[in-house]
């Protein structure tokens, strides 16, 4: 971490030149402090603006499912249903994306032809370059119609599993479709982290495994996966953070309802981010403030998840040294 730190080689200062130095250093330091201030400002302004509606709320904000902040005298709203939908959508997305992402990372690092590897890596990165609104448009305009017969078949043959109970939605605008699109969106994030950490596996460990006669898969099992575990977990948590906060794919695909429902093939559920995007243009009075309160909850959840991810990655890096 400290290999390229400049301060050790700082020139001996001589009186006159210091004005420029002081000004420039102050400017650089100021930008750093400004970033910290912006981050603090995000939290502070959200709290300040959320407070009026939270104070006027007659229902318990954390356990209520309804969203009626504009009823005169007794506004009642809560994030229970929204938080459930957010976590459910992100969890399914992660469940779908993580195994595939690990496979892709292994493919790029160990299986792909050397010359093609970086090109194929770029192609996975391209998935991250596509704007979320385009994913949303693709999801509603192309993917959902394709999934209708699939969902009907799932409801017919897998309906005995509570998650897939029918009748399946005839438009496929369900939480499962939204999660599939979210999974595609977080795929490049998890892949990038896993790829980096797989690449750092000590050459010695890998060659030792191969020299003992291990097949490529046994080498990966013995040397790569144990080494890369923390990186993969960290990457998955970063992906989770992204999936929790993703707005457009859900807002455009899901046909929402403020309920807590485990029926993945039926319309219903809603996420915090999508709810904010859909409600904001029509929100007035306490409505805006209530949406800011919901945003505060989302901010808190993603903050915890992201800090956890960074912690896991940092600890993994330390252990591997």
């Amino acid at each position: 971490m400290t290999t390229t730190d400049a301060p050790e080689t700082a020139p001996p200062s001589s009186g006159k030149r210091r004005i420029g130095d002081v000004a420039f250093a102050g400017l650089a330091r100021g930008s750093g402090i400004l970033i910290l201030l912006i981050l603090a400002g995000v939290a502070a302004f959200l709290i300040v603006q959320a407070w009026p509606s939270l104070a006027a709320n007659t229902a318990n904000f954390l356990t209520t499912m309804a969203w009626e902040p504009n009823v005169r005298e007794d506004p009642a709203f809560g994030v229970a249903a929204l938080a459930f939908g957010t976590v459910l959508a992100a969890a399914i997305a992660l469940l779908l994306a993580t195994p595939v992402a690990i496979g892709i990372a292994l493919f790029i690092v160990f299986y792909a032809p050397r010359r093609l590897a970086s090109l194929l890596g770029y192609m996975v990165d391209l998935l991250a370059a596509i704007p979320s609104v385009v994913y949303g448009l693709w999801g509603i305009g192309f993917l959902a119609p394709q999934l209708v017969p699939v969902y009907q078949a799932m409801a017919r043959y897998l309906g005995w599993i509570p998650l897939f109970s029918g009748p399946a939605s005839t438009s496929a605008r369900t939480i499962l479709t939204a999660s599939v699109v979210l999974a595609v969106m977080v795929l490049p994030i998890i892949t990038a982290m896993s790829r980096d950490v797989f690449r750092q596996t000590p050459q010695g460990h890998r060659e030792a495994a191969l020299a003992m006669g291990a097949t490529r898969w046994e080498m990966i099992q013995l040397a790569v996966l144990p080494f890369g575990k923390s990186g993969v977990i960290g990457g998955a948590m970063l992906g989770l953070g992204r999936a929790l906060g993703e707005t457009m794919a859900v807002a455009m695909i899901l046909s929402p309802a403020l309920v807590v429902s485990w029926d993945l093939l039926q319309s219903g559920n809603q996420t915090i981010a999508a709810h904010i995007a859909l409600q904001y243009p029509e929100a007035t009075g306490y409505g805006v403030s209530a949406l800011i309160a919901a945003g505060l909850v989302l901010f808190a959840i993603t903050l915890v998840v992201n800090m956890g991810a960074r912690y896991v990655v940092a600890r993994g890096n330390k252990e591997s040294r």
Partner: protein
Amino acid sequence: MSTTTTQPPAPGPGMGSPRINLRSGTLPRRFPAALLASCAAVVAGVLLAFSSFGFLLWGVLTAVAYVVIAVTASARVEGGRKAKDRLVTSIVYMCFLLAMLPLASVLWTVFTNGMNRLDIYFLSVSMNGVLPSMDAGGAYHAIVGTLAITGMATLISVPIGVMTAVYLVEYAQGRMKQLLMFFVDVMTGIPSIVAGLFVVALWMVLFGPGHTNGAAGAIALAVLMIPVVVRSSEEMLRLVPQDLREAAYALGVPRWRTITKVVLPTSAAGLTTGIMLAIARVIGETAPLILTAGTSAVSINWNLFDGQMMNLPVFIYSQVRMGGAINYERAWAAALTLILVVMLLFFLARMIGGLFAPKAR
């Protein structure tokens, strides 16, 4: 040589016979490719015979047939461990192909649907005076808005981001450095809609409720862009060889002149790449702009501080919300425009990074 040396340290149940023959059979090297080709041909033939050919079905059935035959053959000839290895190899290849499926599908659907309406007319007129269901109008006002908002966001975040990176690499030490790096990482994870809400809250405090303009959108995008610029610039500045700095110091050049005349020019190409990738990332942001720049502007507005400002992502979103066939056509065309811009930035950035990278390593 004793046979025990070839035992893998974690023997599985499918290990095969305990007497391992070191010269056991191997499948020919061309076997996988040949098998794959023949599977594809046979499956295609069968599907055509039943006249139910579909690319997805064909791909899936070919993959299944290949995996089953390859693994069985390998288990017969080469033993359980090799068979497992081949199974994993096929799965890993399939994971990659599975990821390419949505990429190809998104690009293909956006291209084919977008070409229906993307022409000079679409790019050069606004929606002013056009009813949503009329067969007219275009995205010029949205392009103007995207350029203005993204431009202002870039102007705000590049100086702050690059200077913070300079601070992190050249000045900061100890706790302050760790704290700042940690919070920049945390900031990367702020959901875009929360950045939008932040500006909404800020604007309510500064100007009172109901003020929507392009500048608000630009600030929301800057909040998302700054950490990306910091991280990429920081990486680039670290690549500048220490020798260059020391040589400058040895000539008596003050530190700030060293940074502005030696360090920053050396890493200019890398910095540009990072900034362009950051622009490509925020140019497609929708959620914060729905909250800050408004969803209903129809006319051309170059003024960031005066009223609602349409932009390409929000244009796509609001057209989809209207829901008519013509609205979807506009949305696809705008999506194609947006994707072309993003791809252009993406490839240009990679090219600059590749061509002008410092030959430091």
